[in-house]
C-alpha cells in the first residue's frame, strides 16, 4: 500500500520523469539482485509510468492539436471542422505507423526497466596495445551498459557540436580560428571514463570536446566560440582558450607544444600536495617535434612526476604527414627512458583501459607516454579544406571503418543494450540539446568594452588607457 502511495505521490509531484521513477527500480534491483518487477505496487507504478511517460504525452499532443486548435480559432464552425479533419489525419498517421511509433516511448520505458543498466559487461579490445619499456595492459575491459550508453550520448553530442561549429564558422558567427575535433571524440571520452575530478588535463588548441568532457556545457562552448559573455572564458579566449577550474581543465593553449612543460608543473603540484591525481598533458604529432616537450619529459622523469603525456596522433600536423616531419613516427617510443603505450584512439574502451593503466603507473612510478592513434575528419582548422594533403578516400575510409561513434553503436546493438529506435531517440535528444544551446548562445551578449582592460594583471596596475574618443572612454586599468 505504501509503495502505491509513494508511486502516486511521485507521479503527482510532477517529477515523473523517466529517471525519477526508474531510479527507484534500479535501487531495488541492486538490493535484490533481480532486475524485475516483483510487487503489485511496482507493477501498478510501472503501469502508471508507462501511461504518463508514453501514452499521456501523445494524448496531450493529440488534444492540443485538435481541441486546442479549435478553441484557439474561436470555436467557430469552420474551426471545429478543421479540428476534426486534423484529428482524422493524426489517427491515420498513427495507424500507418502501426501504432509502433506511438508506443515507441512505452517500449523504451519497458526495456529500460527490464535492462540491467549497471551490470558489468566484459569486452575485448580488438586492436592490441603496443608497449615500450612497460607491460601491455590486459585487452579485456570491464564496462557496463550505462557506461557504453553514456559514451554514445556524449560522443554524439560532441560530434553535433563540432558540426554546428562548422556551420557557425561558415556563416561568420565564429571568426578567427576554429579547430574541430570530430573523429577524435573517443580520446577525450575514453579518458574521462578513467579519470576523476582530482586529475588535471591540459591540451592544445583542439579543445572544444575536452572542455565538455571536463564538465563544461555546450552553451559555454558555443558562446566562447562566438566571443560572447556566457562563454567559459568570458568571451575573451575564443576557440583555442577554453578553461574549466572546477574540472581541472587548464586549457586550451595556442602555441604548439608550450602546454607540455605546464603539464609537468601541474603534476609536480599534485605530487607535492599529495592529491592522488595525475595530469594528462596532451599534444599532437606536430608538437611532438618541439624541444620543450623533451625538456618537460626529462624533468618529469627525473623527479618522478605523475604526468601522462598523451600524443593525439591524427597523422597530420596541419598539412604535414607524420612521416615527413618526424624521423621516428612511433611517438610512444619518443620518450626513450619514459615507458609508452600505443593505443587505438578510435576505441573508447581501449583509451579507457590505457588511461586507467597509465594512471596507476604514473601514481607509482612517474611519467608515461600514451600515443592515441586517431584521425580528424575536418582539416586542421576551418581555413583548411583537409583534402590537399590527403585523399577523400582516406577520410571516408576511416569514417566507415573506424568511426568511434559507429563502433559504440555496434556494441550497443550487438549486446542488446539498446535498440535502433532508442539510439535514434538518443540522437534526436542530443541534436535538440545542441540546437538549444546554440540558440541560447546566439542570444548571449558581447562582453562589455571594459573587459578589454580587465585581467591583464591581478589588480592595481594603475595606468590609464583610452578609447577612440578620450572624452568618452578613459579607463583606469584595473
Amino acid at each position: 500500500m505504501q509503495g502505491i502511495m509513494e508511486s502516486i505521490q511521485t507521479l503527482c509531484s510532477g517529477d515523473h520523469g523517466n529517471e525519477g521513477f526508474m531510479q527507484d527500480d534500479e535501487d531495488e534491483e541492486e538490493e535484490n539482485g533481480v532486475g524485475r518487477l516483483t510487487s503489485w505496487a511496482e507493477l501498478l507504478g510501472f503501469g502508471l509510468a508507462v501511461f504518463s511517460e508514453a501514452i499521456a504525452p501523445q494524448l496531450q499532443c493529440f488534444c492540443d492539436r485538435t481541441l486546442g486548435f479549435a478553441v484557439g480559432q474561436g470555436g467557430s464552425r469552420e474551426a471545429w471542422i478543421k479540428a476534426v479533419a486534423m484529428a482524422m489525419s493524426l489517427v491515420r498517421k498513427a495507424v500507418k505507423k502501426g501504432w509502433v511509433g506511438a508506443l515507441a516511448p512505452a517500449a523504451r520505458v519497458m526495456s529500460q526497466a527490464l535492462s540491467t543498466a549497471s551490470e558489468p559487461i566484459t569486452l575485448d579490445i580488438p586492436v592490441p596495445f603496443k608497449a615500450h619499456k612497460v607491460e601491455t595492459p590486459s585487452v579485456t575491459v570491464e564496462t557496463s551498459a550505462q557506461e557504453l550508453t553514456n559514451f554514445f550520448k556524449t560522443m554524439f553530442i560532441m560530434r553535433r557540436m563540432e558540426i554546428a561549429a562548422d556551420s557557425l564558422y561558415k556563416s561568420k558567427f565564429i571568426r578567427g580560428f576554429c579547430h574541430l575535433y570530430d573523429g577524435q571524440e573517443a580520446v577525450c571520452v575514453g579518458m574521462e571514463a578513467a579519470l576523476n575530478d582530482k586529475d588535471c588535463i591540459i591540451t592544445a588548441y583542439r579543445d572544444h570536446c575536452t572542455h565538455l568532457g571536463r564538465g563544461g556545457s555546450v552553451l559555454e562552448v558555443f558562446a566562447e566560440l562566438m566571443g560572447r559573455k556566457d562563454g567559459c572564458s568570458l568571451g575573451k579566449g575564443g576557440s583555442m582558450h577554453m578553461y574549466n577550474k572546477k574540472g581541472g581543465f587548464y586549457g586550451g593553449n595556442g602555441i604548439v607544444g608550450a602546454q607540455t612543460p605546464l603539464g609537468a608543473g601541474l603534476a609536480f603540484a599534485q605530487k607535492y600536495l599529495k592529491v592522488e591525481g595525475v595530469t594528462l598533458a596532451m599534444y599532437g604529432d606536430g608538437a611532438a617535434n618541439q624541444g620543450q616537450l623533451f625538456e618537460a619529459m626529462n624533468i618529469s622523469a627525473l623527479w618522478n612526476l605523475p604526468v601522462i603525456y598523451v600524443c593525439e596522433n591524427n597523422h597530420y600536423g596541419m598539412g604535414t604527414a607524420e612521416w615527413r616531419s618526424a624521423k621516428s613516427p612511433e611517438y610512444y617510443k619518443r620518450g626513450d627512458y619514459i615507458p609508452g603505450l600505443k593505443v587505438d584512439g578510435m576505441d573508447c574502451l581501449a583509451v579507457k583501459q590505457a588511461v586507467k593503466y597509465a594512471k596507476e603507473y604514473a601514481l607509482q612510478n612517474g611519467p608515461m607516454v600514451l600515443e592515441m592513434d586517431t584521425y580528424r575528419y575536418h582539416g586542421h582548422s576551418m581555413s583548411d579544406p583537409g583534402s590537399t594533403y590527403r585523399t577523400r578516400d582516406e577520410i571516408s575510409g576511416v569514417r566507415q571503418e573506424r568511426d568511434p561513434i559507429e563502433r559504440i553503436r555496434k556494441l550497443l546493438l550487438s549486446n542488446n543494450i539498446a535498440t535502433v529506435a532508442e539510439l535514434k531517440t538518443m540522437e534526436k535528444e542530443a541534436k535538440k540539446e545542441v540546437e538549444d544551446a546554440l540558440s541560447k548562445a546566439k542570444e548571449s551578449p558581447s562582453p562589455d568594452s571594459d573587459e578589454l582592460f580587465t585581467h591583464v594583471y591581478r589588480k592595481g596596475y594603475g595606468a590609464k588607457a583610452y578609447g577612440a574618443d578620450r572624452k568618452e572612454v578613459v579607463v583606469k586599468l584595473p
Partner: protein
Amino acid sequence: MVRRRFSFGLVSRLSSPIYGRSPCSGGIWTPCLGQKRSFMTAKDLVESEEPEKKVTNRINMFSAINQALHTVLDSDPKSYVFGEDVGFGGVFRCTTALRDKFGRHRVFNTPLCEQAIVGFGIGLASMGNRAIAEIQFADYIFPALDQIVNEAAKYRYRSGNLFNCGGLTVRAPYGAVGHGGHYHSQSPEAFFCHVPGIKVVIPRSPSQAKGLLLASIRDPNPVVFFEPKWLYRLAVEEVPVDDYTLPLSSAEVMRKGSDITLVGWGAQLAIMEEACDEVSKLGISCELIDLRTLIPWDKELVEDSVNKTGRLLVSHEAPVTGGFGAEIAASITNSCFLRLQAPVSRVCGLDTPFPLVFEPFYMPTKNKCLLSNQNNVILDIDCTRPILFGKRAPHAVL
C-alpha cells in the same frame, strides 16, 4: 567592426619606390658609402633623376615576395628557403612554385620547431650560405628569440669578425588581420629592436616588400623581415619585374608637409595616410615618413623633418609601453628638444594582450591618430590635463 579598406587610389599613392642606381644587381650588396659606424646611419636617399619606363606587373604583396625569393634563388646557387609548410607554397602563398623550380634540396619543409629552424639557419649562414628561414607567424618566433638574440646577433662580435651569420634572413608575417586573436596578430618588432647586431626591416607595400627583401637577403648582416599579413592580399601595386633593391637603414618621406611629422611602418601607414587626408581638410599639412628599417633606423631623416615641422607623432600596432615608438620619441626629444613645440605623441596599441573580440578598441585607428593629430593635443601620462599647443585650435579643448 572596423575594417580597413584599401582603395586602389590610396594604395598607388603609398608607392613611390626609389629607383635609381641600385648598387645591387645580382651580386653581393655592399653598404653604401658614407655609412657611419655608429648605430645611427646616414641617410643616403638616392633620388632618381627620371625613372625610366620600367616593366611592371600589378600584383599583391605575397606575389611580390614570391618574386623576390625566385630572384634570389635564381641568382645565388647557395641560397635556401625553409620553414614550416613552405614546400607547397606556405600558408600565405609566399613560397609558391619555389620547390618545383629549385628542388627539394633548396626549398624544404621543417618540422614544427622554431628554435631549431633559426638555429639551423644560423649554422647554415655561418658557412657562407644565404639561409632564408620562414617563421609561420611572428607570434611563434619567441622560441627562436634566444637563437636570434644570443647567437645570430652576437656571432660576428664575439668571434672578432672571424665568423658571421650575415646570410641569415628570418621572414615572419606580423600584425593584426582583423580576426587573428591573441596568437595570430602580434607585432613583436620591439623585442628585436633592442638587440644590436641584427637588422629589422618592415615593408609597407608590394614594391617596397620586393626591394627591401632582396636588400635584406643580400645584406651581410642577419635581418629579421616582418611582413604585414594584412597586406598580403589587400595591397596591390605596380611592381617592377626585374631585380632591384631598396636601401636599408633609409627611411622614406611619403608625403611632404610642414605642420607635423608622422612616423610609422608597415600596415599602420595606410591608417596614418587616411588620417593625414582628413586633417589636411582642416589645413594641417602632415609629413609622413615610412621608417622601413627599424634598426638601425634613419635618425637623420626624421631629425631633419622634425626640425622643419616642430612636432612628431609615432604610430604602431604594438603596445605603447616599450614599443619602438618609445625609442624614436626619446631620441628625437634628445636631439630636437629646443625645436619641439609639443611633446612627442605616440598612438599605439593598448597595454593589454592582443584581444579577440576587442580588436577594434585595441588598434590605433584612424580616429585615434586624428585626435592626436588634429588639435595636436598630447595627453600627459595620467590623462587628466590635456595640454594644447597647436597653432590651430578650432575645436573645444579636450
